């Protein structure tokens, strides 16, 4: 359990949020051109990093808006929170 600083609502309990998985996976621009391997890569393969991970969250029991988060998955420490479309504030 941890607290999340929603960029729209402020600090709330993590149970108000829904995790949306790895961030910055770009939807294929030309889906009809994709090979099966490329589809598998886009749909299923994940970094699943132990350490600093970029991910999407939704404040599902609050403002219901999506945003991005940088979190250390080894200890659940949140490094930064930023809005959709923005560049990540840390590398």
């Amino acid at each position, binding site marked *: 359990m941890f607290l999340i600083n929603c960029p729209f609502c402020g600090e709330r309990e993590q149970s108000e949020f829904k995790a949306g998985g790895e961030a910055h996976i770009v939807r294929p621009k030309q889906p009809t051109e994709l090979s099966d391997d490329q*589809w598998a890569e886009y749909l299923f393969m994940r970094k699943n990093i132990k350490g600093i991970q970029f991910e999407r969250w939704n404040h599902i029991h609050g403002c219901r808006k999506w945003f991005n988060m940088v979190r250390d*998955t080894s200890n659940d420490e949140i490094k930064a929170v930023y809005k959709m479309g923005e560049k990540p504030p840390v590398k």
Partner: protein
Amino acid sequence: MKNKYSIFSLIKNAFSYHENWEKAWKDPEPKKEYDVIIIGGGGHGLATAYYLAKKHNMRKIAVVEKGWIGGGNTGRNTTIIRSNYLWDASAGLYDHALKIWEGLSQELNYNVMFSQRGVMNLAHNLQDVRDLKRRTHANRLNGIDAVYLNTEEVKKFCPIINTSPDIRYPVLGGTLQKRAGTARHDAVAWGYARGADEMGVDIIQNCEVKGIKRNGDAIEGIETTKGFIKTNKIGVVAAGHSSVIANMAGLRLPLESKPLQALVSEPVKPIIDTVVMSNAVHAYVSQSDKGELVIGAGTDDYVSYSQKGSHDIVEGTLNAILELYPIFSRMRMLRQWGGIVDICPDASPIISKTSIKGLYFNCGWGTGGFKATPGSGDLFAHTIANDEPHKLNAAFNLNRFVSGDLVDEHGAAAVAH
């Protein structure tokens, strides 16, 4: 040759106050080179080493474990064993394991306390009823014992369940697999470790893998905290940390690692002599031989390696437990813990070769790997020894995420994810 455990060895050792028991396994330093190295000393990894030595006559085998054997998910699960999965491929896989469980204590000369006390899966809405009936039929076609029970039969089989129609999610029926049950998780790891050690397998604890050395598409060895070890074949059985190892080899896996929690109560007298699982409200419970209620909670929805879960997950599970079993309202919980489970998009495991020659993965067991331990070890050993999957694990290859031939077992996985 190790001394056989028996009533006589027990009596003999009683005279020396149980201070002279032979060590069940050695604690060797790694040799320079092995034919096969298994990464991960949990139940699945130790079973793999055991069957590699026993059935495939391989001798220079090492199991490297970053902590102590059986200290990961092997020692953190709720010990439930069953094989009532929907699809033919899964039924074959899990029932293969169940058949080995039935003779495992004798084979290993180690009491794994396998107890076929039955597993009941409850239905709480009309869709559950339809799904569970369909699964019962599918199970029976695959030769797996399964029966569908109506509400009265559920109550008769487990009288402490609240079957009142007035609860939020009333019990509309359930399935029962009588051959299913539980086993002692530590004993499984220790039994396989003892058996493997006897056949010359080196079980190397406190040895964390730091890197995988490749020469082009071939494997050269592993970098560990105890130095470099040369090998041409690596079997990775690292559960929640599978992706971490895969990254070392430059491989991508379709996994997400998430915390899964369980908890036990204070010990009480026998009150529930079976395992009851409920997918819809997410509650499952059994009672250990010590008398503790063993309760499984759900997974968190975010990736984490912290071995801690969220409190609200436990709270939700306990709400459901209390609605179904009002008799437990004053039970006190003794311990709570989390393990990191590697979840596949189709809730089925991967026992497979990879694009790198000599590198094999056994992962993606998600929330339900314990039940498969002996079968998983057997089939993974076959895959490594022959460089080809056994027909029972052929469907569980990595390529299914490219071909689209998934084995969707979200319905039978019993832990919603």
